């Protein structure tokens, strides 16, 4: 499960550290003590920054780094699509082998496909992604969030 891509992100995380943002959340995985504090900043409909700090295993750390790399600069709609695809992959219990289309969407994040076989670790990989979704909801307010979701679904 420890793909080089994952170890790379773990050892050299992207965008780590807390910077200013529109909203901040703190998520904890109570079963293992992994923690993340995460801030989002939006400019119009674009993800301007995702900054974070936390402690946890290589999987949760690398996954936050990948998230930063993937989502910053994207449209909210597109970012939500990426999040949904990553979620699907992680909940697949190893049953999905990413195809070309998925690789195009997830880029480095496809390296986590192997993690989905380890139920105890899936939560680690998802920690920052759940925090990001939560922070985004907070930043935009539930209404905007619903609208964005709507937009994405009808796109």
């Amino acid at each position, binding site marked *: 499960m420890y793909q080089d891509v994952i170890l790379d992100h773990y050892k050299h995380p992207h965008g780590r550290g807390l910077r200013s943002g529109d909203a901040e959340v703190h998520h904890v995985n109570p079963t*293992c*003590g992994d923690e993340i504090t995460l801030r989002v900043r939006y400019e119009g409909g674009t993800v301007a920054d995702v900054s974070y700090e936390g402690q946890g*295993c*290589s999987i949760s750390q690398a996954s936050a780094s990948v998230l930063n790399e993937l989502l910053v600069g994207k449209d909210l709609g597109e970012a939500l699509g990426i999040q949904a695809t990553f979620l699907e992959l992680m909940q697949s219990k190893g049953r999905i082998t990413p195809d070309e289309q998925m690789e195009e969407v997830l880029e480095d994040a496809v390296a986590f496909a192997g993690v989905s076989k380890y139920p105890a*670790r899936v939560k680690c990989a998802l920690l920052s992604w759940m925090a990001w979704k939560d922070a985004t909801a907070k930043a935009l307010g539930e209404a905007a969030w619903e609208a964005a979701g709507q937009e994405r679904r009808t796109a």
Partner: protein
Amino acid sequence: MSGEVLPGEAPAVLPGLLDTEAIRKDFPILDRTVHDGRKLIYLDSAASSQKPRQVLDTLQSYYERHHANVHRGVHVLAEEATALYEAARDKVAAFVNAPSRDEVVFTKNASESLNLVANMLGWADEPYRVDASTEIVITEMEHHSNIVPWQLLAQRTGATLKWFGLTDDGRLDLSDIEQVITEHTKVVSFVLVSNVLGTVNPVEAIVRRAQEVGALVVIDASQAAPHMPLDVQALQADFVAFTGHKMCGPTGIGVLWGRQELLEDLPPFLGGGEMIETVTMHSSTYAPAPHKFEAGTPPIAQAVGLGAAVDYLSGIGMDRIAAHEHAITEYALRRLSAVPDLRIVGPVSAADRGATLSFTLGDIHPHDVGQVLDEQGIAVRVGHHCARPVCLRYGIPATTRASFYLYSTPAEVDALAEGLEYVRGFFA
């Protein structure tokens, strides 16, 4: 404690070791391979031990030849099943040196045993009743199963929950014992051997103080019963709880030993078949202990299996098992402290210590340590080990824990030490 033994060096023969070659033949699972043919190195016995063939055969033959519901049956199978079930009670009573077999209550696990006591005391009449004027004392190194039942009891009765803190080297801090255990204390419940730190606690000092103020003493012996001779009379406790699956027995069986007069005086917990004397729609009277506390069809096969486990352990000798584990622990402490950046959480010497070693490895997260060890076939546990306050106390989110048992070998300790070196390199 320095690294006298170099990685890869063959361990000198340690004093007190058991003939693990013979013992390991009794445990079919230890022959298993994992991850493409790697030999399993099982260092997670503190979570649950493996089972010898003797126990599995007993289970099998129980179901194939003798199963029926126990008690009150007049047919052959019912009589045989009852005799086997009650014989298991005799065996467990002897194993812990109980003054009477009627003091042994079968539960489903140690957690139920501890909840049973907490509930009995909540519903008891005076002088036992726990209420708003009462203090309950536990310690900061308890397993959640010896914390949450008391938190629930405190919430539901208004009682105050207090606890002993821990010293930096992983021992109970009893310096304020007079303030912690006071004349308001009705019950003191503590772990005999910590499942995270490995610490063996000083029973006598605590019991003496508890007796001074007339408090009942509950001992969580879940990590002691599998590993050392246990004598409930010598402990001078009022209740002792332990669990079958950690001591070579099946899952689904636990034990509560309690002093007879207490079991007689205290009210029942679960109501149902087998625990009654007579029932009308208006009211019921209860059977004498232990049956009063065994509502419904008990874990019959599991009790019988635990009886076989107790026979197996006694056959080897609990003192010899303790000596074996002591030798392994000493060796493991020596080997592990030679691993750079490794920090033992708990006592660093083998004195008053069980064969459970928790540690951190630099800032590599325990999940990663455990996972990379697993890829080498080495099974350890990672996390807070159901004792999160211990992690909070030492300011760490989690630990990696290796735990040894009668089937553990020095070679497995070597494999662990080497595995940890590999982990360090992997994440360097």
